[in-house]
């Protein structure tokens, strides 16, 4: 061995460097850059969804308010739901956190398909712009995020609103499918030597579960959207009862996607929790294999419970009872995890830093939302409460409390890794308490107004029903939550510029990403480590590591045991992903305005782009 470590690092830096400036970002295939692009873009959509939410809360702060009219309100709650689910949580967890962290945690230098990864980001961004062009053009989707037919059919939704719904979601679904395929292959095949299945970090198990969920659930939504598009624009009859169609078909297909979707939203949050808890309690996660299995199981069971969203639609009682029973099974993996998280905290030596506070807040909110979820198992209760604010309270405890709190915690936890700076602890804790109080003030009274009979999705309500004071509390809670989120981001922004340097491993975190410098270099690992434990940074042994320093080399592992199966060449930055996404955006634009001739022209453009994409072959081995 003649090369020194410094030589090797210098060579890696030269080989893995991307183009400088904006062009570098537009053509990047680096998973960390793609992850950051996802992060910033999803934050913009989060802001948009938040503005929509606060507008609705302001409209509902008093009876007979007229800040916005009913049609605008319909678009607001529909687009709010779509934005938060499809353009904030999924891309934030799988796109931003998943992309940035998964390769670092499994000891890889990039995702399995780096260009496809960039493609999924540009498709995601284009689909969001597409949706918001619809909204600002007055054609925002307006039939609720589940867009039930016949309300979403051409007869009752004659303008383009529901077309923006079908096309933007189908467009967005492509991005999620690509990301999930990429995550699955990365976790299954790009692990460092020695990382057998039982040594995969729990965060990656959660990503695996969410990705499998997306891969198998999204097709159901895609089929539904295709059917609705054909019904609305070409006169097909899938959902037209007069011609042999069925509105139940829409609901079944939608919820066969929609319920796994709920778990797809929260499982990555579970994964974040299982990384933060060990780091701040200085102990390994309790019941590691059980938690890993529970993460996968929760998504798996999620595929068998969809009809519990349809308890009030007149399905046969036998069906209802079956699905109530199936739904109750979800309690088992959920409880395993709740106990594993709490007992790990109790039996460890917890340091209550901001990330851990968010995780504790998450456990509290998840248990609260989970308990109201169990209440919905009781079919008569569900039938009574359907379409009231009680439902809104329940799923916001899950989706905001259980899915978003760990995202905030994760932002603090990995902030030093991404930026190389420490955040300010005191303002961090203050932001947690403001958000925690704000969300409970925002969502808890919704249980009560729901029980009092206030229906969801009404743009206003009369006074004298006893709902007013609760609505005031909710709106105030909304503003407080918004304030807390502003404090959180202000802290992160100030820390980015003024924070003290963090060093590579400020928390002595358990997993591989803490073994490399902060921010990580382009090639992630100067040498590929050999892994002997699920908590690779906590083991004392220093096994030999792989030196891969010629070209874009990547270790490919065998499926189960993590043995070296191949050394692969990885592609470098490419202009094709963004061009392909652009062509797709034009195709979808032509579809929404019924210009099928132009749409087919853009389909040809897409094929040509793909030809260009594959025109240059990677370096040959031999």
């Amino acid at each position, binding site marked *: *061995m003649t090369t020194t470590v410094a030589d090797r690092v210098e060579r890696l830096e030269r080989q893995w460097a991307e183009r400088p400036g904006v062009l570098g970002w537009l053509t990047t295939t680096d998973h960390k850059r793609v992850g950051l692009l996802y992060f910033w873009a999803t934050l913009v959509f989060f802001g948009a969804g938040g503005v929509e939410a606060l507008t609705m809360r302001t409209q509902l702060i008093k009876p007979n308010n007229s800040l916005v009219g009913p049609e605008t309100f319909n678009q607001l709650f529909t687009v709010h739901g779509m934005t938060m689910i499809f353009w904030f949580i999924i891309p934030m967890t799988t796109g931003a956190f998943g992309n940035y962290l998964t390769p670092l945690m499994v000891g890889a230098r990039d995702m*399995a*398909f780096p260009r*496809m990864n960039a493609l999924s980001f540009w498709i995601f961004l284009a689909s969001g712009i597409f949706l918001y062009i619809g909204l600002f053009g007055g054609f925002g989707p307006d039939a609720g995020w589940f867009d039930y037919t016949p309300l979403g059919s051409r007869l009752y939704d004659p303008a383009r609103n529901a077309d923006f719904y079908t096309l933007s979601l189908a467009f967005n679904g492509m991005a999620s499918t690509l990301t*999930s*395929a990429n995550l*699955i*292959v990365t976790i299954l*095949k790009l692990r460092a*030597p020695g990382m057998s299945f039982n040594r995969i970090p729990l965060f990656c198990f959660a990503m695996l579960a969410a990705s499998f969920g997306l*891969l*198998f*659930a*999204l*097709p*159901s939504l*895609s*089929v539904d959207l*295709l*059917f609705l598009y*054909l*019904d609305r624009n*070409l*006169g*097909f*009859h*899938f959902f*037209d009862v007069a*011609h*042999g*169609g*069925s509105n*139940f*078909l829409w609901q079944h297909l939608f919820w*066969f996607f929609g319920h796994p979707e709920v778990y797809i939203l929260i499982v990555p949050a579970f994964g974040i929790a299982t990384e933060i808890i060990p780091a701040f309690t200085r102990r390994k996660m309790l019941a590691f294999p059980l938690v890993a299995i529970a993460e996968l199981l929760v998504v798996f069971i999620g595929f068998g419970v969809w009809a519990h969203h349809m308890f009030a639609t007149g399905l046969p009682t036998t069906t209802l009872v079956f699905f109530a029973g199936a739904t109750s099974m979800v309690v088992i993996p959920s409880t395993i995890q709740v106990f594993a998280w709490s007992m790990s905290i109790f039996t460890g030596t917890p340091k209550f830093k901001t990330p851990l506070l968010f995780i504790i807040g998450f456990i509290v909110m998840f248990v609260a939302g989970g308990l109201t979820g169990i209440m919905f198992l009781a079919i008569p209760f569900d039938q009574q409460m359907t379409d009231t604010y009680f439902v809104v309270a329940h799923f916001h405890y899950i989706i905001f409390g259980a899915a978003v709190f760990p995202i905030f915690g994760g932002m603090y936890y990995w902030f030093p890794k991404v930026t190389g700076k420490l955040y300010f602890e005191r303002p961090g804790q203050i932001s947690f308490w403001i958000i925690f109080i704000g969300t409970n003030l925002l969502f808890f009274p919704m249980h009560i107004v729901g029980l009092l009979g206030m229906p969801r999705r009404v743009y206003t309500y009369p006074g004298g029903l006893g709902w007013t004071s609760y609505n005031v509390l909710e709106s105030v809670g909304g503003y407080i939550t918004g304030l807390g989120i502003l404090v959180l981001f202000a802290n992160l922004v100030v820390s980015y510029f003024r924070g003290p340097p963090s060093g590579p491993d400020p928390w002595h975190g358990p997993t591989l990403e803490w073994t490399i410098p902060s921010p990580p270099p382009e090639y992630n690992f100067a040498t590929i480590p050999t892994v002997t434990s699920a908590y690779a940074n906590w083991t004392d042994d220093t096994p030999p590591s*792989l*030196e*891969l*320093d*010629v*070209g874009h*080399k990547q*270790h490919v*592992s*065998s499926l*189960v045991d993590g*043995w*070296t*199966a*191949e*050394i*692969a060449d990885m592609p470098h930055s490419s202009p094709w992903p963004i061009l392909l996404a652009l062509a797709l955006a034009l195709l979808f634009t032509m579809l929404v305005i019924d210009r099928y001739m132009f749409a087919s022209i853009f389909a040809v453009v897409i*094929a040509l782009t793909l*030809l260009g994409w*594959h025109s240059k*072959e*990677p370096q*040959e*081995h*031999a």
Partner: protein
Amino acid sequence: MTDVAVDPRARERFPLGWWGVAMLVATESALFAMMIGAYFYLRFKNSPWPPAGTPEPKVVVPLVLLGVLILTAWPMWKASHSSSPRRWLLLALLVQSGYFAMEVGDFQDDLHHFTPQQHAYGSLYYTLLGADHGHVALGLLLDVWILWKLLFGMTEYRRRALRGIAFYWYAVIVLTIAVTLTVTSPAFAR
């Protein structure tokens, strides 16, 4: 140095591209499963099926064509495992193109008798077949592309691409079996 020894214990050696195709096949299979599910869901809600005035689906021709398509798995397999794959690939491409042309002709012929705008039956019939034919068409484009690439010699990249395309074809064949049995089912199972 990069000459890292492959671990002899690692017996599973599918290349990453193969895994990518596996993901595509998984999600597309779910797509077809949902469409076939929708077909039977509406079938059991409607009687008669197909509705009165709509001809029964053809059986003999689609099943014979299906048999022909299944047979193309053999030249695809030979192509992806042979050192001179071009002949096998060309053979597969010719038969697959013939299959596709016949199916498109059949599709157009059906449109003369009933349309997707008449009844949910027609909507499902044409959407299912259209989706399936679309997947066959994509396979043909992939065949042509790899055949073009192979004119300039064999590389490791092309060998892997060929393997992925062959895998895609096996999946298309399985999906076509499912779709064909679904759309012909009214004729032999009432």
